[in-house]
């Protein structure tokens, strides 16, 4: 357990160095970029002192990292607002979208993957695999645009864009999220179906499954009893690996549906070259991915009794 924590800390440190180095590579002087061409030498020096960019590289890095550890993500270069204040209200949007998208993807992929595995030599299995292959090729933002056209514009059933915080009106919140979550979840489900299928296929070849079948259990019962737990192991891994894909998917989907989330903020700040905010958001997203994957690592032990025995011995 300690070793895993150490690996997590090391990964985090490595990621923070990479992000910091890239955002420091900005050609030219930050203060000059902010103040524009007309700035005097004194103004530039004052701005540098204010931003802290006149300090050595390593000091700036450590300041950034230890600031984040205490919840201080720095300040926006242009507006001067604390990055944490900018991120705060937007995190709800992105979390709703990512969690909703992942849940929907699993809800679709689990049954379909089971069908694809059990009926793999019959037409339902063939159909499912084909649908998954096609679904994987559809860009989520295109799916989003088509959904907006059908359900938002033509049928008018759901709002085509925008967002309402859950605290203000939960029903409106849900209605605004249906289309974005569907666009993100359905495309992600197509990727997951193949993993679920191969996880179940593996179970079908194992002894305990065959034994359960030989004592007269139906295939579905044997799979429900032995398959799900065994498949859960590889599924948890896949969800961990796919999380990064779902998060970047959410960034694009936020643009499609004009949702005021972290992704929209990130893209706005990229076009303004406000790297203080950009690196704060990117670090937060990478932290989320690494943390979930560390949890995935830990959860193996909970899911697989064999690992539990090894861990305690």
């Amino acid at each position, binding site marked *: 357990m300690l070793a895993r924590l150490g690996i997590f800390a090391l990964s985090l440190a490595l990621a923070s160095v990479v992000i910091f180095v890239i955002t420091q590579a900005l050609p030219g002087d930050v203060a000059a970029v902010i103040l524009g061409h007309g700035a005097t030498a004194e103004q530039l020096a004052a701005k540098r002192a204010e931003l802290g960019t006149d300090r050595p590289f390593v000091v700036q890095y450590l300041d950034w990292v230890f600031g984040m550890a205490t919840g201080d993500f720095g300040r926006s270069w242009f507006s001067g607002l604390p990055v944490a204040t900018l991120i705060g209200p937007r995190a709800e949007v992105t979390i709703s979208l990512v969690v909703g998208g992942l849940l929907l993807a699993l809800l679709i992929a689990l049954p379909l993957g089971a069908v694809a595995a059990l009926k793999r030599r019959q037409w339902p299995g063939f159909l499912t695999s084909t649908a998954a292959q096609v679904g994987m090729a559809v*860009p989520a933002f295109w799916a989003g645009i088509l959904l*907006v056209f059908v359900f938002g514009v033509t049928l008018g059933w759901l709002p085509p864009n925008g967002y309402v915080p859950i605290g203000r009106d939960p029903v409106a919140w849900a209605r605004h999220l249906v289309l974005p979550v569907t666009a993100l979840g359905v495309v992600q489900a197509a990727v997951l179906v193949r993993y679920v299928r191969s996880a179940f296929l593996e179970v079908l070849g194992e002894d305990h499954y065959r034994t359960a079948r030989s004592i007269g259990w139906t295939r579905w019962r044997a799979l429900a009893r032995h398959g799900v737990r065994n498949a859960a192991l590889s599924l948890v891994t896949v969800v961990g690996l796919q999380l*990064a894909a779902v998060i970047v998917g959410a960034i*694009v989907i936020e643009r499609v549906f004009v949702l005021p989330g972290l992704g929209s903020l990130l893209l706005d700040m*990229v076009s303004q070259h406000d790297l203080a905010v950009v690196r704060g958001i990117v670090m937060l997203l990478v932290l989320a991915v690494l943390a979930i994957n560390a949890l995935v690592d830990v959860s193996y032990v909970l899911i697989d009794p064999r690992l539990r025995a090894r861990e305690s011995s």
Partner: protein
Amino acid sequence: MKRAELWIGLVLVAGVVALALLSFVWTPFNPTGVGSAPRLAPPGWPHVLGTDHMGIDTFSRILVGARSALYVGIIAVGIAALVGVPLGILAAWLPRWGAEGMMRAVDVAYAFPALLLAILLAGVFGASTETAMLAIGIATIPAFIRVTRAGALSVLASDYVLAARASGTPVPVIAVRHVLPNIAHLVGVQASVSFAMAILAEAALSYLGLGTPPTVPSWGRMLGDAQTYLFSHPGQAVWPGLAIAGAVLGFNLVGDGLRDFLDPKLQEVS
């Protein structure tokens, strides 16, 4: 069945390549300049897929868009393979602790998907086709390292490599003469699947305005433009999407088909 998958994939890929090649010598109309054509015309004659909001022929833009998609894919996958394959062989060769450290770094790299890296680079250096290609390429390196290492480990454990080492053959020679030919099929499959992902990433970046510049036709940006006119002219959102999906499906099918064709023992998901 599996053979059919490979063939459908090859036909789709050949189709995209043909569109791209055709665009070098012929497009029905000027794909970039504003013409005298009516704006947002529906499909018909002479504009078979209609025109966009600038009055530019959609079919001509689809043709040139194929070129943009393949260009980004070739460079990005090229970068990933040229860096990832040698590193993967190295990881297989390194002592345990070295390989362990390297694979941990690869794990961290998986937390930086192509799009996130591209967005970060666009924030620092400005958005361009080059930063997009570079970001997609770098983000794809880990996949090549993993695949190459897995393949190289089994090759390095074989008797003929042992014999070569015993007879004093230098390491780089073994890598080129024995390891590379025996993992070429794995790298080929990975390249095809990565190509599909590169096309998807480029489309998303262009849609966001962070990839191919507005002056060059690209499928992703066409979808972005089409979204503006979705209420009045939804048809414009169909063709670029179909083109992206067709190209991605093609490369994915070729990858899967190749995998099963070359090594039937391999599972569909590795």
